[in-house]
């Protein structure tokens, strides 16, 4: 019969229409600004910089190695390296960025920067309501705007952040043990040098003095 297929299709739409009143699964629209769906943990949009502790500059993990600047596919990261050094989380003196800008109007949220960063210093944010009337300056984020605390990172990506924290803690323990061992070795050497007969005087002293700084 002509029209049978159409009637069958109409029955299908009628079923869906009626179903939308009784079944929650059929009601898929979310009225966005008023209603929001629960955030998905792995979601990503733009990068930010992590700092440990409370001071954004002192605790900044970034050491201005500029790997992310080089690897960024759309080249939206601009870094200026400092000339002086500050201690990082294990106490090793490192450079820091005097300028770290990300142009998020160019950024394509690919998270290559996160992957290539060897210092766990740059991570992806989930903040997506970033519209601004300032087209150029408003979307060029500088170092202070990009800095977020580690607590914030733990809040938005709990699983990933826990892994990162564990890895960093392990590294710190290792670094401390190494420093301690080096210090002990140096002390032992110094003691040995002190205990040794005073016939040998100047030569062995110099390498020992250099040890603790390394």
């Amino acid at each position, binding site marked *: 019969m*002509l*029209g*049978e*297929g*159409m009637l*069958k*299709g109409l*029955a*299908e*739409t009628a079923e*869906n229409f009626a179903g939308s009143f009784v079944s929650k699964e059929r009601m*898929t629209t979310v009225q966005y600004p008023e209603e929001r769906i629960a955030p*998905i*943990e*792995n*979601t*990503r949009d733009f990068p930010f910089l992590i700092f440990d502790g409370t001071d954004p500059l002192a605790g900044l993990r970034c050491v201005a190695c500029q*790997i992310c600047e080089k*690897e*960024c*596919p759309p080249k939206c990261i601009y870094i200026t390296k400092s000339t002086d050094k500050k201690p990082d989380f294990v106490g090793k003196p490192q450079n820091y960025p005097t300028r770290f800008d990300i142009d998020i109007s160019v950024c*394509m*949220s*690919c*998270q*290559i920067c996160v*992957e*290539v960063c*060897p210092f766990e210093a740059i991570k*992806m944010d989930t903040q997506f309501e970033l519209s601004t009337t300032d087209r150029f300056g408003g979307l060029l984020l500088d170092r202070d705007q990009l800095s977020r605390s580690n607590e914030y990172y733990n809040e938005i990506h709990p*699983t990933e952040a826990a892994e990162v924290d564990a890895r960093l803690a392990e590294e710190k323990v290792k670094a401390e043990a190494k420093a301690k061992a080096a210090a002990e070795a140096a002390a032992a050497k110094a003691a040995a040098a002190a205990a040794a007969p005073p016939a040998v005087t100047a030569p062995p002293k110099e390498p020992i003095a250099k040890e603790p700084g390394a």
Partner: protein
Amino acid sequence: MSATAFKSYRPPVIEPSEEGDELLEVAMGPHHPSTHGVFRMDVALDGERVVRLKPVFGYLHRNHEKIAETASYLASMPYTDRLDYFCSLTNNWAYALAVEKLAGFQVPERAEYIRVITAELTRIQNHASAIGFLTQEMGASGTPLMYAFREREKILDLFEELTGSRMMCNYMRFGGCRVELPKGWLERVQKVVDGLPKFIDETEALLTGNEILMARSQGVGILKPDLAVNAGITGPMLRATGVNYDIRKIDHYGIYDRFKFRVPLGDHGDIYDRYMIRVLEMRESVEILKQAIPDIPAGPIMDPKSKIRGFRPKVGEAYGRIEAPKGELGFYLISDGTGNPYRYRVRPPSLINLTVLEDMCLGQNVADVVLIFGSVDIVLGEVDR
């Protein structure tokens, strides 16, 4: 196939019907809702009949290949998402496959399973929306498309949970996948997959027997198998003409030889066959997913040889190809041993499937051009690159 099939082909010339008739030349597009983006067809019409059709590409050219030759291998991965933005995961796979061939990486078992699962989900959502768009161009104002998008949304949610992004997934890496599956992800995939047969039945009840769809699509835009083979058409377009060619069956790339699935083939090569092939392929994809999800083994997801920074494959060349939802997607790479490819070439199924547009449209009504174009299932991001 006979030997004559491979002779050079020239489209038939249709003369105006009467002496003194003038042809009407119309530029369809580039800003026309039916062109799926920015694409122009210069059509010459004799009344309603199409006499000549010239596709004009390149409005969305973004220099993808040249950019890839100046960037590192890894940095091209997010750009492949943006070729066919409906199926970013299959694009990732094709590129990863080419680099893996180049560098000789072994993909762990678990990563292969994840790749199959994500690729088949991608295929389902691509075909569902392709059918939706096709019916919308026939005048079904939105209903089949909205049903398709409802299902697609569930799949995109799964992608977001796994990869962090809904469409620009950037998930696969050379020698594996980027991150481990989140907790409970497979169960949620299973739940979505269990709901898919119902959705496909619904689509079929809505469309397959519909008289309007049959009248508009049967016998319209016929593509002959010999022309399809000569022109290098691949994917559902080729299989709708009856040529049995599915790279999943031919290359057995990944672990496709472990799954039992059939390759649906058409008879007539018209629009209706292309629609039907897509429906049947969705069903086969569901079958593959049903086999892959319970089988997935534990283990690493990355080849230990693969590294993120300072990746330099040895000198050589490689071509990696997969059966993307739209056809054969290939990446051809030449390495000169440095950190960026010497040559990077994409074989886009959308562009090559579009090349026979004139042959399918000649002699048809101008209203059918929109339909024929829609049935090719293209994404302009991939056509123009």
